[in-house]
Each structure stands twice: as C-alpha cells, then as structure tokens.
C-alpha cells in the first residue's frame, strides 16, 4: 500500500505554499515552517526519513495531489467541508484566525469581510481559491473589488502601492509578512469579526485511508509527548488550539 511505497522510496513529497510561518523555503532550498516540520517529524516516525517539498499555489494544491504530483499537502490548507470531501485530512495541526493587513490606524475601519461589501470603493486582496476569498464572496464582496493576489509578497506590494485597501490572510502569515517588510505604515487587524478560526491538517489522496490513519496515530503520539508544541510554538502557533478541536468538528464548520 501507499505507506509501504513511501517507506521503500524513503521519501515523501509534500505541497507547500512558501508562506511563512506555515511553510517556508530558504535561500539554500531548505524546507521549513510549522506544517512541514510537523509532517517531517511524523513521517520519520512512520519510517520515511526524507521530506521533499514542491511550492504550489494554494488553489492548485488539491489538483496536484489528485494528479499524483505530491503525496500529501502540509501547507496550512484549512479544513472546510468541500475540501474534506475532496481529500482525506489528518487530525488538526495548525490553527489560526483570519486577519487583515491594512494601513496604519486602519483608516477605513475594516473589521469584517462584510465591511468590504458595504463600502463601495473598498478593494480587498486575497489569494485565489483560498479561504479568505470564499469568506469574502460569501459576505457579499463583489468579484470586481476582490482582487486575486498571486502571492503574499505581491499582496503586500499592492497594498503599499495603494492598489488594494486591505489584504487578508491568516494572522500569523500577516504577522510574518509585516515583520519582514519592516513597513511602519501598515498594521495587522486580527481576528476578522465573524470569521471562524480554522485549522489545517495534512491532506492525503482519497482512497489512501490507511496512510492517513497511520499518520493520525503518530500525530496523536506527537501531540501527547509535548514534542508537537515544541515544534509549532516557536513559529507562533498555539498547540492548545489544535488539541481542543478535531477533524469532525472542523469539517462540519462552514
């Protein structure tokens, strides 16, 4: 079965988004970030020593998994009902709330996605096919004011250049982005009112339940031993958040 395949190959390939602190790839090509680090630890325990990563746009991750380009996704791809239907998630790993990157002082007072629907000139940036885009569309933000931003750096740049009024990503992603940019004229507004807290899990292909289940077993052990917290907390994530919920609840949450 799949796990045996991975074991005999000695390596597993995951999809990542290169969006610190969830996932990152440094100038030497080394993969890091909370999600890959957790995945690496679990796979090592499963007897798969090497973890490789492909950087893929968020929207393309599930198709890539289906197209067998990667073995799993460990990228902060939050659980949602449609996604749970398309892939097999592990138990939750990283949890985060949604946030907005806005000019200092939040001059237009954005607090929820609905605020962008009511303000007829407000333009919101979000990654294509991501949670934020979905939430914004559901809140009634019209398509032409919801700009599909290809990557965080572009979103930051577009905000700095005044092309968009706010850029939405999970809290920790924006914190990291803001810290790197060293731009004193911006701030992070978090959490977005009315937006749920989301958690990701490592996603596997449909039909590979045994692999997912084996992963879950080792993940639970990792959480129990406290090693889990040691891995993710330096990145700013809360281990308690992941422990206090489960896949079933998250997959049901709209």
């Amino acid at each position, binding site marked *: 079965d799949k796990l045996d395949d991975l074991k005999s190959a000695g390596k597993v390939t995951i999809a990542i988004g290169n969006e610190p602190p969830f996932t990152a790839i440094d100038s030497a090509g080394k993969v890091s970030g909370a999600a890959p680090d957790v995945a690496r630890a679990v796979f090592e325990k499963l007897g798969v020593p090497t973890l490789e990563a492909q950087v893929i746009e968020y929207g393309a991750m599930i198709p890539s998994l289906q197209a067998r380009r990667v073995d799993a996704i460990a990228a902060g791809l939050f659980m949602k009902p449609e996604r749970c239907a398309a892939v097999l998630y592990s138990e939750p790993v990283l949890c985060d709330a949604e946030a907005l990157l806005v000019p200092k002082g939040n001059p237009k007072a954005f607090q929820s996605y609905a605020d962008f629907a009511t303000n007829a000139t407000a333009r919101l940036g979000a990654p294509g096919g991501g949670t934020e885009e979905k939430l914004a569309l559901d809140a009634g933000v019209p398509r032409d004011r919801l700009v599909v931003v290809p990557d965080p750096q572009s979103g930051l*740049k577009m905000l700095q250049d005044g092309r968009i009024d706010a850029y939405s990503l999970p809290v920790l992603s924006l914190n990291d982005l803001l810290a790197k940019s060293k731009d004193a004229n911006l701030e992070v507004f978090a959490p977005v009112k009315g937006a749920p807290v989301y958690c990701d899990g490592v996603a596997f292909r449909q039909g590979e339940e045994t692999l997912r289940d084996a992963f879950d077993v080792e993940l639970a052990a990792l959480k129990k031993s406290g090693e889990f917290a040691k891995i993710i907390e330096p990145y700013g994530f809360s281990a308690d958040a992941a422990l206090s919920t489960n896949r079933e609840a998250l997959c049901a949450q709209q």
Partner: protein
Amino acid sequence: MGDWAGYLTLILQGAWVTVQLTVMGCALALVVAFVAGMGRIAPWAPVRWLATAYIEFFRGTSIFVQLFWIYFVLPLTGLALSPMQAGVLALGLNVGAYGAEVVRGAILAVPKDQYEATVALNLTGWQRMRHVILPQALPLMLPTFGNNAIELLKGTAIVSLISLSDMTFQAQVVRSQTGNTMVPFLTILVLYFVLSLVISRLMRWVERRATRGLDGVR
C-alpha cells in the same frame, strides 16, 4: 536581508534549470519540427492530416493551456510527468509546431526548378530531399529557428507557473524572502537577455557555417 550571495546563488540555480529547459526543449522542438514539417508535405494524405492536426492544435491553443493540461490532466490518464518533463514536452511541442511551418516553408521556398532538375537527373524521392532540397532549405530555416529558440527561452518563464524552480520562479522566491521586488526581477531580466544574446550569436555562427561556400562570390 543581507544574504545576497545566497539569493544570487538561488537565481543562478534557477538559470541552470532555465538553460536545461531551453536546451532540451529546443532539441525536442527541432526533431518535432522536421517530422511534422516534412509530414505536412508528404505524399500520403493521412500523414499530412496528422501533421496538420498537430500543428494547428499546438499553434491554436495557448501554451499555458497546453502546459496545465500536460501537468494536471495528463496524470489522470496515468501518465505522470515530472515538472521538468512536462515543461520540456509543452515547450518542445509548442515551439515544434511553429518550427514545422518553418521547415515546410523553407522546403517549398527552394525553387521548383531545383526539384525539376532532380527529376531530370533521375534521382529518387529521398535522394532529392537529402542531396538537393534540404541542403538548400536549411540555410533558409536557420534565421527563423534562431528566433524560435529565443521564443522558447522566453517561454520557459511560464513554467514557473507549474512550480518548476526556473529562473523566474526563483526570483519570486527571493522576492518573498527579501521583500525586495526590483532587484530580483532586474537581475533575471538581464540574465534572460544575456541568454538570448548567446542564442542569437550561436545561431549566427551556425548560419555562417551552413551558408559557407553557397554564393561564394556574394
């Protein structure tokens, strides 16, 4: 933000991927161009139809669609290619379709007189091609082939969209690491230009070699 040497290394690694894609893509394109180009003027109708269908399809749809199709849809039929293979295949087949028209055009551009002389000298079909038509058609193809090679080089940039770590992709990585947009993009613009200069110099050299002796006095 100080690690510029590291970032430059990253971009140069990407440049190496770009070079590999270009070289392998060109090789594939060249082969495909000759096969399809000669197929288009073959005496057998089915061969002509096949060649025409290939050429029109690959020239008619966008390379993006071809790339995404090869990368995301083809694996569903069981043929999973590595990003590099997918990139080379898409680029080679796409540029090859354009090259095929160049090959056909060049062969047809050899004056009909030459073909008639070969009939009068009783050469066989293959001998006509091999000894008379192709040697004269080749110099006509080379300048356009050079342009096609540069088009292919530029086309490699879009493989970054299927997350192959070519030069453009690495520039994006550097950009997200450093928060600086200008430097990585300017760097790769210059690198692409240098590569295209290398190609055009190379092609000019090949052209000179191929036309040596021809029109000796001109």
